[in-house]
């Protein structure tokens, strides 16, 4: 792994030497995120978001552990224990608002990180495994965030849990028993709340584990870069430290300013007022919506309105509800196949004129529309818009992308990263 010109870790004194011979952990860190990791010199700010996602996870774990010290997972006590944290625990309001908005910021940075990968073709050979692990992390994040939102046991917590676990009942035959088995009851109740709390505490550490694999897999081929051209010589790279630690430090400052601005001055902006009402299984909110980061998928779920049936017979093969559920999961699972759907050898969207058009004028608007429509009541205009956008979303990945990769004529690529940056051709190394 890594490049032959990578700096080598040299223990500076007797102690680090002693440690290095017995457990070379400092060496591992040095090679992973230190001066021993050569990185392309031309990364733009979109490459900050991987590190930021890691920071967001750490914020969530630290604030979450403190919250768990004061939280009480009971259908009678959960809501009030959160208010106890907000009112009586020292700086509890800060810990809780930071955790609540930290989830949103985690998704913001991860979405930008994913779109970076989509545009610059980071999922292509030899980086498929990094991408696959990334999709696994994304799925785990969604599960964790959903279960975390249930814990305060407000109205949206309860009814969100009711809707999401209801997906299982769409499965033919075994659906309803399976749902009851998973919930431990007929509806979300004490049993469900306890297991959600347990899993909500467990999954972040699973995510941390998969992130280690994600970074491990990254260090086999090394980081991609905006040109998509592979690293050819030492001139193309800089050591991660100090070059990218400094740049990531600056990016972290900007991220934290945005995070602090929302957490301290508009902490409930991204939440829903109904979750400040204690859960009441007998009173359904007028309009159940998930957190903003699930809205595109929620819109896809709701966009399927007709059964898949044999015409003129009335025989229904797949009900609309089941199809919505399949499509919703499918919209994420299809990302697993992306490296094999997009067969263009050119990685970066910069050099792919046709791909770029579909990306900016097709994929991005369709996801924006789905996010917006996901929050709207089921009026005709929103249903129509989300059906068009969802149809495009699936067509983009499953139909358009494979065809584009085949017919597109890419722009000429620079010969090397150094040439792209300096305008001068790479000096060939003389032996």
């Amino acid at each position, binding site marked *: 792994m890594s490049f032959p010109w990578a700096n080598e870790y040299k223990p500076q004194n007797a102690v680090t030497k002693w440690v290095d011979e017995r457990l070379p952990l400092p060496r591992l860190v040095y090679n992973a995120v230190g001066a021993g990791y050569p990185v392309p010199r031309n990364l733009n700010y979109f490459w900050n978001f991987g590190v930021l996602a890691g920071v967001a996870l750490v914020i969530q774990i630290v604030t979450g552990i403190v919250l768990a010290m004061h939280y009480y997972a009971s259908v009678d006590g959960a809501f009030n224990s959160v208010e106890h944290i907000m009112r009586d625990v020292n700086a509890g309001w800060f810990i809780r608002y930071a955790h609540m908005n930290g989830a949103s910021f985690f998704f913001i940075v991860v979405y930008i990180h994913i779109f970076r990968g989509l545009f610059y073709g980071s999922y292509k050979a030899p980086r498929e495994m990094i991408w696959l692990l990334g999709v696994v992390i994304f799925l785990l994040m969604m599960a964790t965030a959903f279960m975390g939102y249930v814990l305060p046991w407000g109205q949206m917590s309860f009814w969100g849990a009711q809707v999401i676990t209801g997906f299982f009942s769409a499965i033919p035959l075994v659906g309803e028993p399976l749902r009851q088995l998973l919930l431990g009851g007929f509806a979300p109740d004490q049993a469900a709340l306890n297991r959600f709390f347990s899993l909500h505490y467990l999954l972040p550490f699973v995510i941390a584990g998969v992130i280690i694999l994600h970074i491990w897999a990254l260090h086999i081929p090394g980081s991609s870069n905006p040109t998509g051209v592979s690293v050819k010589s030492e001139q193309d790279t800089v050591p991660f430290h100090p070059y990218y630690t400094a740049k990531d430090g600056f990016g972290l400052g900007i991220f934290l300013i945005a995070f602090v601005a929302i957490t301290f001055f508009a902490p409930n902006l991204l939440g829903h007022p109904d979750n400040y009402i204690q859960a009441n299984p007998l009173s359904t909110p007028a309009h159940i919506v998930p957190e903003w980061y699930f809205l595109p998928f929620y819109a896809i779920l709701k966009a399927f309105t007709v059964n898949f049936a044999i015409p003129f017979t009335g025989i229904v093969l797949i009900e609309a509800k089941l199809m919505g559920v399949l499509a919703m999961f499918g919209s994420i699972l299809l990302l697993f196949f992306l490296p094999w759907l997009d067969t263009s050898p050119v990685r970066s969207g910069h050099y792919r004129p046709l791909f770029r058009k579909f990306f900016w004028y097709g994929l991005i608007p369709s996801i924006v529309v789905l996010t917006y429509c996901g929050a709207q009541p089921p009026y005709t205009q929103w249903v129509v818009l989300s059906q068009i956008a969802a149809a495009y979303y699936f067509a983009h990945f*499953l139909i358009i992308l494979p065809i584009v990769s085949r017919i597109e004529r890419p722009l000429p690529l620079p010969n090397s990263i150094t040439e792209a940056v300096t305008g001068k051709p790479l000096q060939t190394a003389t032996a």
Partner: protein
Amino acid sequence: MVRLIAFLVGVFFSGMLLIGLGDTIIGAIKEPAVPTAEHEFHKMPLAEKFPHDGPFGKYDKGQLQRGLKVYSEVCSACHSLNLVSFRDFAALGYNEDQVKAIAKGWKTEVPSINPETGEPATRPGIPADRIPSPFPNEVAARAANNNALPPDLSLITKARANGPAYVYSLLIGYEDAQPAELLKKFPDAKTPDGLHYNPYFANLNIAMAAPLTADDQVTYDDGTKATKAQMAKDVAAFLTWTAEPKMENRKSAGWAALGFLLIFTVLTWMSYKSIWADKKH
């Protein structure tokens, strides 16, 4: 193979969505959505400004004290304030003795037991007590209120969109009769007996009768004229405080954090620039 299966799946999903699209449009043409009275006559909360608005906003303690008076003399007849303790009133500018006096003089006593017989009893409040509920339980609350349940008000301004303005608008938004236009257009949307027309309420008909009925219903200690609008505004401010008692700590900590981060970001930007100074990228 992957691409063939993907293509078929893509055609299936996108196709079903487009069939659904056609179905939605045909459905909308055949049976256009019927407008409802809620849809056309519901009003968004008035754009009312409060001293605690904005990143520099602070609570006006005089206003919170007036709001507490409105709550204790009007709202507390039906609405509980379960998450607030008497001791919390120190934040409104009352000293320890005043808090004790408020707790002791509260019109509902705190549920307790008789220390000798163990029979249920009540005792006067102390600062450590939560504000006692006006009703012992939900059944009693519904029985006294025509089967409607008066919600707890501790978090009401966070549990409604644009909460403080909503509470204010709702309290002054009662109309004696439904607009004639509404009844003309929606003859079935007549306010049922026992409910009250209020365009700021989601479905226009609220079980609560107008609580603020006349000016000077509450006598303010600080000489402020107790108009209906003034009382509504003061109690809305008070309920903002009950929902978010740590707001001032939050905002001042926020400015400190932003100041720190600004310096941090400038320093990291400078080190980024100097480290990369001789590296074209």
